[in-house]
């Protein structure tokens, strides 16, 4: 239990300490103190480093890389689509089927074992 005597003294004094400061002391102090702070090494480093980059500048390389992958994916998708198209198969393309079924086409375009003497004979026989 705290004494009534002490409490009455403390109650009578309140929070007053009786101490004062010169007029405008705190404002003057803050101004003087802020002006007297020495420049620190890390402040110089921050000042000499490049200006802070914008969000776009930071994400730009990632956006470009994502766009490149999207382009590659699109190209692969298109190639896959073309190669699996029915027009590109023998069964699905009548012109191609006729050509493959023709001996002349095979002789003229596929077989390459003709020598120059045979070619001259062919030219002679065809009266060209």
């Amino acid at each position, binding site marked *: 239990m*705290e*004494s009534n*005597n*002490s*409490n009455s*003294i*403390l109650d*009578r*004094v309140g*929070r*007053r*300490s*009786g*101490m*004062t*400061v*010169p007029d405008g002391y*705190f404002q003057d*102090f*803050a101004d003087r*103190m*802020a002006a*007297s*702070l*020495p420049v*620190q090494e*890390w*402040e110089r*480093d*921050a*000042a000499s480093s490049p200006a*802070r980059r914008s969000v776009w500048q930071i994400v730009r390389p990632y956006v470009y890389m994502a766009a490149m992958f999207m382009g590659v994916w699109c190209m692969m998708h298109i190639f896959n689509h073309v190669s699996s198209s029915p027009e590109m198969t023998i069964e699905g393309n009548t012109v191609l089927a006729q050509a493959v079924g023709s001996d002349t086409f095979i002789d003229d375009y596929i077989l390459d074992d003709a020598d120059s003497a045979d070619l001259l004979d062919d030219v002679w026989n065809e009266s060209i």
Partner: protein
Amino acid sequence: MSNKPSPEASARLEERLRDPSQARKAFGDVIAAYSEPLYWQIRRMVNNHDDANDLLQNTFMKAWLSLDNFRGDARLSTWLYKIAINESLSFLEKEKRRAGVSIDSPDARAASASLSADTHIDGDTLALQLRQAVSQLPEKQQLVFNMRYYDDMKYEDMSAILGTSVGALKASYHLAVKKIEKFFAGED
């Protein structure tokens, strides 16, 4: 008048302090916000305006120079109070060593001399008597009494600053009040 920032404003200030491009401006705001509460804390310990002024400058200078050590583990106010109190205790220790007195053995003459040397007072006799009573206490008890009585600081905050348990602080405050009571009983 105390213009200590709110916890939210203090958190924003801490964030700006960690940004090297904003730290100087933010520290100016720290000085503006904390110079008054820290000044009174120091002044009540050293009982003299000129010494309090020097110690307050040292406090902010040390805080500025060790700003990169402030990681935000402790609150900004706790960190600043710790520096101010350490500066003041070191100063008092030097003064007492110079006078050949132990820091834990209050010396009535030294305290009276310090109080009478203080020219920035308002002439309130009762307040001066209380200061004399407080100056008779050991430094650590003075600290606890001043923080609790004049600043109305919570025991939890005092515990964070002084690194002492809440129970020990309560006991210390109780003892301080008892000694002040004894001082005034002797005055009557």
